[in-house]
C-alpha cells in the first residue's frame, strides 16, 4: 500500500485484515470513540463525533436562517431566495395543503423540524463529517416522540380524550361485533407503530445511505491498494464511480426524507385538528 493510500485508509478508518482481505464496515461505524464522557444526575452522557456533527449542523442551519433573513429585500438575493423557497415549501405545500385552514400555529414547528432534519441529514455527504446524526436511531426517535406528543395533545385538546380514543378505536363502517377483533389492531397501529415507523423511516434511510457510501469508499481504497491484482484496475474505478453515484443519490434521500418526515407530521396534525365526525 502506498503511503498516501495508507494515510487515506487511516482517515477512513480502514481496518486491516491479517489475511489481507477486504474488511467490510460494520455497525461499529455508528459507534465512534467517545470524545468526552460525563454524568449529570446519574445520567451518563457521551460526546462523540456524531454529537459534535449534530451541533455543527444545527449551528450552521441556524446561522443560515439568521443571516438569510436579515436585510430582506423585495428582490431576493441568493440566500434569501433559498430561504424563502424552502420556507414557503413548508408553509404552503406542507402545512397549508396538508393540515388545512388551521395550519398557522404549526408552521414554526414544521419549519424548525424541516430545517433541522435537512441540515442534519446533509451531514452525511459534507466532506470530513460524512455521517448524519439521523443515522443514529436516537435522533429520529426523539423527533418522532416530539411529534407524537404534539399531535396527540392537539387531538385531545380538540376532540377530548374520549372523542379521540373513540375515533381511533372505532373505525367507521365496522360492525360492532368485529370491533373486539379490530380495535386492538387499530390502537397498536395508531399509538405505537405509527410513531415508530416515522422514526424508523428517517433512521433507516440515512443509516443505509451511510453504509453504502462507506462500503464503496472503503472498497475503492482497498482495491487501489491491490492494484495490479485480480483486475483491480477495473473494479477500483467502478467502486469509485458507485461511491460518487451513491453520493448524488444521497442528496435525493437527504431532501426527500426531510420532506417526508415533515409531511407525515403535518398529516398527523391534520388528523388531530380536524372537526369531529
Amino acid at each position, binding site marked *: 500500500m502506498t503511503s498516501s493510500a495508507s494515510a487515506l485508509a487511516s482517515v477512513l478508518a480502514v481496518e486491516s485484515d491479517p489475511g489481507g482481505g477486504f474488511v467490510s464496515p460494520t455497525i461499529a461505524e455508528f459507534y465512534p470513540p467517545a470524545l468526552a464522557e460525563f454524568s449529570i444526575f446519574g445520567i451518563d452522557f457521551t460526546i462523540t463525533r456524531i454529537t459534535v456533527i449534530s451541533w455543527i449542523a444545527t449551528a450552521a442551519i441556524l446561522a443560515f436562517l439568521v443571516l438569510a433573513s436579515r436585510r430582506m429585500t423585495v428582490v431576493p438575493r441568493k440566500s434569501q431566495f433559498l430561504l424563502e423557497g424552502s420556507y414557503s415549501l413548508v408553509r404552503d405545500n406542507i402545512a397549508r395543503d396538508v393540515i*388545512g385552514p388551521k395550519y398557522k400555529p404549526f408552521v414554526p414547528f414544521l419549519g424548525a423540524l424541516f430545517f433541522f432534519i435537512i441540515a442534519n441529514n446533509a451531514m452525511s455527504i459534507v466532506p470530513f463529517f460524512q455521517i448524519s446524526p439521523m443515522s443514529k436511531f436516537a435522533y429520529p426517535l426523539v423527533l418522532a416522540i416530539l411529534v407524537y406528543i404534539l399531535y396527540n395533545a392537539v387531538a385531545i385538546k380538540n376532540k377530548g380524550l374520549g372523542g379521540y380514543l373513540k375515533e381511533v378505536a372505532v373505525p367507521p363502517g365496522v360492525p360492532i361485533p368485529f370491533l373486539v377483533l379490530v380495535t386492538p*389492531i387499530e390502537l397498536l397501529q395508531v399509538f405505537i407503530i405509527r410513531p415508530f415507523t416515522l422514526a424508523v423511516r428517517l433512521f433507516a434511510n440515512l443509516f443505509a445511505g451511510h453504509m453504502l457510501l462507506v462500503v464503496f469508499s472503503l472498497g475503492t481504497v482497498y482495491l487501489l491498494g491491490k492494484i495490479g491484482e485480480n483486475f483491480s484496475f477495473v473494479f477500483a474505478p467502478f467502486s469509485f464511480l458507485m461511491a460518487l453515484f451513491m453520493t448524488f443519490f444521497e442528496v435525493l434521500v437527504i431532501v426527500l426524507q426531510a420532506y417526508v418526515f415533515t409531511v407525515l407530521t403535518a*398529516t398527523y396534525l391534520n388528523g388531530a385538528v380536524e372537526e369531529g365526525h
Partner: protein
Amino acid sequence: MSAAMDSASPQNGGRRPDPSPSAQTHRSGADVGWGITGTLLSGMIVWGGAGWLLDRWLDTRLFVVLGMLLGLGLAIYLVVVKYGRADDQPVSISSTSYSKISSTSYTTYRRTPGGRRSRPRAQQMTQKGHR
C-alpha cells in the same frame, strides 16, 4: 350499511350531513401507504401475539400461526374498510364544487361535504403517497 353508519358516526348532526361513513379517512395521501403497512403489521402482531401467549399457556405451537393469519385477515379487512371506500363511490357534488371554485386552494377541497374525497384530490394524494 345503515347500522354501520349509526354505530360508527353518531356525531353526524353537526354542520352538515355526513354522506360517507368513512369520514375518518379524510387524511392526506402521504399517510395512506404507511397506514396500510402499519395496519397489516399491527394485525399480525396483535393476534399473532395473542396466539403466541396462548401457545405458551397451553404448550402448543398452533395458535401463533392461526393468530397471525387471523390478524392478517382482519388487517386486510380493516384496510379495505378504511382506505378502500373512497373510490367505490361515484363522484357527485363534491367533485363538481371542487372544479367550480379553483384547483389549488386548500379551502376548496376542505369544503367538500363531510370531508369526502373527490377524485381530483385522490389523484393529488396518490402523488404525495408515492414519495
